């Protein structure tokens, strides 16, 4: 059984006997998935509904990235799992136990906050041991855990430092160490890298994945950056306006988007969508747009005019306007003058079709020779 205490696997002492009181709950059904959210709803006192009827199952040991534009309710969602926000409706199960009404400290979850949320008046060591003491660990155990987690994040030399003397990256590591130290069943991470500069972010991204692989705890990671989502997650949940739009592997959400929102949101650039007929829209990735009609072409021919051109180095980024005024983006190394009218060609197998409800519909036989 993949226990929540993977920390012992790397731990020097190798003991598995310490465990937070939080895990003493009876397990109702161990066969269920790690986290299961049923009909979650959050309405704020001012009447704003941040989350409506959200259902999601998260697999044990997975690194699930919840991605969506800002204001889509993803932070609220995470805080509900953490217990920092009450659920208006619905239930949350972790490994089959209903934790909907439990206090944040009794849920077996740990959280890494966007702004680190370190206790500014405590040293790194105290920051980590504060929670451990609350869980009733003994002094020796705490010392051992401290050494392990600080070593894991590479901050052994900073045990006695105050957060104010650390850099942003180091603070994030302390926050991480603090979360790991409690060997939780679930890690929650709320845009943990967004306060770091670009280079450090890439470096920490790799480090987070390394740590995840090492300790293997289920992780829910929140970001608004779809690049981060694609590179880090083994499961991506796309969220919009308080609802999960699609949930699947990075491959799946990129290559097989379930709806227009996901298609547009995932990928850089997002998918181009143009209206076709009978409420059906067609979508294609900009990399699949051809400027010359290939032989034996079956697919979509799109007439458009070049509106703007940007030099990205290797390629140019063009925005084009169709006859109906819809904007699409393509990238190509051809030099095109702005204002020029041209036709672009997309093969049938590279086309996606979406119905009137913006949900995906089969393309097969639909578009053999279409022209817009």
């Amino acid at each position, binding site marked *: 059984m993949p226990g929540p205490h993977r920390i012992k696997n790397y731990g020097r002492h190798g003991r598995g006997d310490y465990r937070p009181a*939080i895990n003493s709950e009876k397990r109702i059904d161990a066969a269920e998935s790690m986290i299961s959210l049923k009909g979650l709803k959050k309405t704020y*006192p001012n009447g704003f509904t941040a989350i409506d009827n959200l259902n999601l199952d998260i697999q044990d040991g997975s690194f699930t990235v919840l991605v969506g534009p800002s204001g889509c309710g993803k932070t609220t969602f995470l*805080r509900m799992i*953490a*217990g*920092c926000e009450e659920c208006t409706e619905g239930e949350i199960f972790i490994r089959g136990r209903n934790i909907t009404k439990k*206090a*944040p*400290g*009794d849920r077996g*979850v*740990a*959280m890494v*906050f*966007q*702004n680190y*949320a*370190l*206790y*500014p*008046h405590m040293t790194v060591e105290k920051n980590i041991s*504060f*929670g451990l003491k*609350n*869980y009733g660990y003994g002094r020796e155990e705490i010392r051992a855990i401290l050494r392990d987690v600080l070593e894991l994040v590479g901050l052994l030399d900073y045990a006695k430092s105050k957060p104010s003397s650390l850099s942003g990256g180091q603070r994030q590591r302390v926050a991480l160490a*603090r979360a790991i130290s*409690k060997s939780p069943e679930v890690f929650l991470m709320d845009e943990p890298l967004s306060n770091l500069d670009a280079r450090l972010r890439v470096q920490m991204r790799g480090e987070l994945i390394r740590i995840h692989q090492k300790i293997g705890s289920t992780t829910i990671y929140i970001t608004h950056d779809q690049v981060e989502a694609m590179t880090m997650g083994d499961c991506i949940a796309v969220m919009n306006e308080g609802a999960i739009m699609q949930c699947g592997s990075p491959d799946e959400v990129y290559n097989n988007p379930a709806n227009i929102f996901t298609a547009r949101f995932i990928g850089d650039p997002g998918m181009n969508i143009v209206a076709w007929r009978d409420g059906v829209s067609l979508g294609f990735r900009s990399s699949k747009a051809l400027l010359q009609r290939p032989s034996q072409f079956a697919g979509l021919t799109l007439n458009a005019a070049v509106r703007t051109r940007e030099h990205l180095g290797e390629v140019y980024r063009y925005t084009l306007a169709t006859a109906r005024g819809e904007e699409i983006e393509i990238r190509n190394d051809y030099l095109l003058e702005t204002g020029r009218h041209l036709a672009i060609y997309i093969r049938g197998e590279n086309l996606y079709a979406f119905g009137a409800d913006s949900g995906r519909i089969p393309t097969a036989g639909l578009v053999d020779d279409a022209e817009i």
Partner: protein
Amino acid sequence: MSDGTLSPKKILMGALTAAVFAALLAAFIFPMFFMLSTSFKTLREANITPPSLIPSEFHPENYAAAWRRMNFPHYLLNSVFITVCTIAGQLLVCVPCAYAFAKKQFRFKNILFALVLFDLVVPAQAVFLSYYLIESRLGWIDTYRGLVVPFAYSAYTIFFLTQGFKTVPDEILDAARMDGSSEIQIIALIMAPIAKPVIIAATLFTFAYKWNDYFWTSILTTSEAVRTIPMAIQNLMPTDHTIREWHIIMSGNVMLFAPMFVIYILAGKYIKESFTYRGGR
């Protein structure tokens, strides 16, 4: 900027600046100096014209006399006890209250906050008579609790602490909750240490207020039993129209003056802050 030459205009400005400094310092240092000087004089020298600035002979025994006649130790102990209890009471009552108003969402919050800040609008001095009536009905006149319990609540302290607590990020409190902290731990181990400057400032303000309080003590007490040092000097004032022994009175006044003055010298920066914080919203 200075080119080394002294124009008449510059000399005039310099003299004017010096004169203003001299006037300010004289207006504020001289009375205190004169008090100190008189406290060492004899009765005769304290009442002569022209007054002498420096006593011709020093009589430190004036202090012993004032100490004895004021029954100073009794009042000092009362002052220390009542001030310490009031501060402790305010921390127990106002800190949790400010925490709730700063960090929790609940129904009727605005109404309750307005109610708790009632005192900022209605000057308690105007309705002290009802205060007195309530305390006498409770049998609290001339008791320590009568001088402590009502003052464990302070609208000003609550307002001030609430403003300070609001600046502590919610995430830190959430992190503490996820660390399994109880509310007491969150208040005492997370909120209070982070907002320490605010708490120190509020405490110093309460200290100065309570230590110097004359009004409430004179209304809520009728005998020496629980009176504090601001009341002590009355014991040096003649009740009939005999001559005032200013040298002894000034010795007593120096003793009243000294504790606050020493604290002001030591913690002046914090005290000034605690007073200016009232202005910075």
